[in-house]
Every structure is written in C-alpha cells, then in structure tokens.
C-alpha cells in the first residue's frame, strides 16, 4: 500500500477552514464586545434581528399552476424583527449576550476540531486516533449547538413577547427543531467509530513489514 497523499481539494479546504476558524474568532470577540457596547449613547442605531413567527395570517397567494388559478392561504410566517438594542432593557441584552457567550464558543470549538482534522489529513494521517476523538467531540458539540440554539431562540422570543404591549400582529414564540443539525451530529458520531476502527487497522498495518 503506497503512502497516503492528500489531493489539492484537501489542501484548499484546509486553508479555507483555517480562514473560517480565524473569522469565527473575530465574530465571537466582536459580538461579545458589541452587544453590551450597543447600550452606550450614540449607538442607538445598532439593531439585532430577532426571529419571530406570525401565526394565522389572513393573507393568501395565488399561482397560475392550476387552471383556474387557486388561492392558497398562508399559515405561519417567519419574520425578522429589527430590534434597536439601545431601546431594549438590560435584561434582554444580557439574555442575548448569554446566548452568544454560550453558542459562539461551541461553534469555535467545532471549527477548531474540524481544522485539526483537515490538518492531520493534509499531513498524511487521516486514520489518526485523535481524529476519531475529534469527530466524536464534533458530534456532541453539534448536538449541543442544535439544542442550545432552540432553547436560546425560545427564551429570547418569550422575553420579547412578554414585553410587547401593543401589536397589530399576533406574535408567537416557538422552539426551532434543527433536524439537520441532529442528523449531522449522529453522522459525525458514527464516523468517529469508523475512524477509530480505521486507526487501529492502520496501526496494525504499520507493523506489517
């Protein structure tokens, strides 16, 4: 069996993931500093997009796919409320900051592991036991990110809905279920076991002279 040589795609992806990792660091630092800073005078224009659901709209849309054209009634609509942070209470900004402080480091750790895996693959050691451990960690991190995002989203939606005193719309809070995230987590955990077996086979192969 010849020595493993990563192709150009792996090398390019390794570079791109490194860039993404450094960018994620920048976003994390800026977000954690900017959120409380938005309460300072002069920064009232800073807004944060708050996802909301508007249920049971009395609206409809017609398509000309059918003959005659049929109007379909809209159900729930997902919208984004631009909330000026300067006008929000400290408790709400604190909630947003806590959510960012919890979720962004998880994302950073996920990217760190992904970057290290690609670096080991680029260096010619794909079936490294450390890669297997990293994949497993990434799986659990993805689960935490998916579940954490749902919880955080629901909490901030509830906080927002609780503060609304007047609205021409019927607003509702909901828990988004990140099915793709959970599925990805399971795939990563399964891959970790495959890589663990691969690393033991490679170790055994390395002792064949």
């Amino acid at each position, binding site marked *: 069996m010849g020595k493993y040589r990563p192709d150009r795609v792996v090398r390019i992806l390794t570079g791109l993931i490194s860039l993404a990792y450094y960018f994620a660091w920048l976003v994390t630092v800026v977000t954690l500093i900017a959120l409380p800073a938005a309460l300072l005078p002069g920064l009232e224009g800073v807004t944060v997009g708050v996802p909301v659901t508007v249920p049971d709209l009395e609206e409809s849309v017609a398509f000309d796919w059918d003959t005659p054209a049929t109007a379909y009634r809209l159900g729930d609509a997902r919208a984004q409320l631009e909330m000026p942070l300067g006008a929000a209470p400290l408790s709400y900004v604190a909630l947003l900051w806590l959510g960012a402080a919890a979720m962004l480091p998880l994302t950073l750790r996920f990217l760190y592991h992904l970057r290290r895996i690609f670096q080991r693959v680029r260096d010619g050691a794909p079936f490294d036991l450390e890669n297997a451990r990293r994949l497993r960690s990434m799986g659990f991190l993805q689960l935490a990110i998916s579940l954490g995002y749902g919880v955080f989203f629901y909490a901030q939606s509830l906080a927002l809905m609780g503060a609304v005193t007047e609205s021409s719309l019927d607003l509702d809070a909901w828990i988004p279920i990140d099915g793709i995230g959970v599925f990805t987590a399971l795939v990563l955990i399964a891959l970790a076991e495959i890589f663990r077996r691969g690393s033991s086979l490679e170790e*055994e192969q390395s*002792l*064949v*002279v």
Partner: protein
Amino acid sequence: MTIRVTLDHVLERRGMTLTELSERIGITLANLSILKTNKARAVRFSTLDALCRELDCQPADLLAYVPE
C-alpha cells in the same frame, strides 16, 4: 507472539549491519528494526524473499517458533 525473528543472528554470521541490509534491500531501517525486535505483526513474502536473497539463507533461518 510465539514466532521469533532471528535476524540479528543471521546478520552477525554475515558480518552485516542493519543499516547495510536496509540499503541493500530497500526496506527502511525503522521497519527492519521493528522486525528485528519482534514487534512486527506480520511479514510479507516479498520482504522475506528480499531478506533471504540478500542474506543467502532460508526462511527457517530467520524465523523460530518458541512455544510460550
């Protein structure tokens, strides 16, 4: 493992070092060292062939069965 590699005895009889053998048969010193120190899990026939050719010996000269 009950199979022992007696490569060091054959090398001594031939007056050859492991480094010289490695250069002659194109197997890395690290791999030959794994073989010599009985850490190898398996030996390829091609490796055995190269060793026997270079050391002018039989496979039985290089391997010994030692019951545990």
